[in-house]
């Protein structure tokens, strides 16, 4: 039985691919600004954006060979920490079909994989829904 979807102010559908533009940065900036204003936010990822929370990323990016001591957080860690910062107001969903299709089936436990058949339910649970980027 599907878990109930919390009511939210905004659903940000992150469909565009990472590493192609500043889309992911914009989505995270907008989410942060909304959360700072007390809003409740869902994020739903599709396509290659499902890889942002892949368990395979671990906590850190590969080392900077020119600065070995410095650690750089992975997107998986950044998202995990953002969720921990807002435990009752931020919800992160990953399209199950896209995650499987793009080799990101193994996700961090803090996000929820959802069937694309349930997408409209997430739209209905939010006052506003943006689709950011294309798969």
């Amino acid at each position: 039985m599907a878990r109930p979807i919390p009511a939210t102010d905004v659903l940000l559908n992150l469909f565009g691919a990472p590493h192609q533009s500043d889309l992911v940065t914009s989505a995270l900036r907008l989410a942060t600004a909304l959360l700072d204003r007390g809003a409740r936010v869902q994020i739903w990822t599709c396509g290659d954006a499902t890889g942002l929370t892949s368990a395979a990323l671990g906590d850190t990016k590969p080392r900077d060979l020119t600065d070995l001591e410095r650690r750089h957080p992975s997107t998986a860690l950044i998202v995990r920490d953002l969720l921990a910062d807002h435990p009752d107001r931020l919800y992160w969903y990953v399209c199950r079909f896209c995650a499987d299709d793009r080799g990101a089936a193994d996700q961090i436990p803090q996000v929820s994989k959802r069937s694309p058949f349930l997408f409209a339910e997430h739209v209905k649970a939010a006052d506003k829904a943006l689709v950011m980027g294309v798969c």
Partner: protein
Amino acid sequence: MTDHLLIESGGPQTGPACERFVGDAVRLAGDGHRVVLFLVENGVTAALPGAAPGIETFLRDGGEVWVDTFSAAQRALPAADLAADVRMVEMDDVAAKLLEPQVRAVWH
């Protein structure tokens, strides 16, 4: 009449795609709707004078052009170099607009 927040992230380098979306903003403003066109990421280059011709028509028809301060700074675009009638904003301003109940938003 309705309130719209249109968000352009690609900018003039995307050619017809940006031009069409700015044209959509022009059409909405021309039809009398209240429209904010928020330029973010590479979209901020549309705020350079003459870079996106539809912007002037949009402003003339009562539209508002907002430019993301963060994106402009990343791209070494000082406000003084941008078109005179644009407004530099923070993401907090965009969040506030998006949360206004009557505002409909479209990301491009």
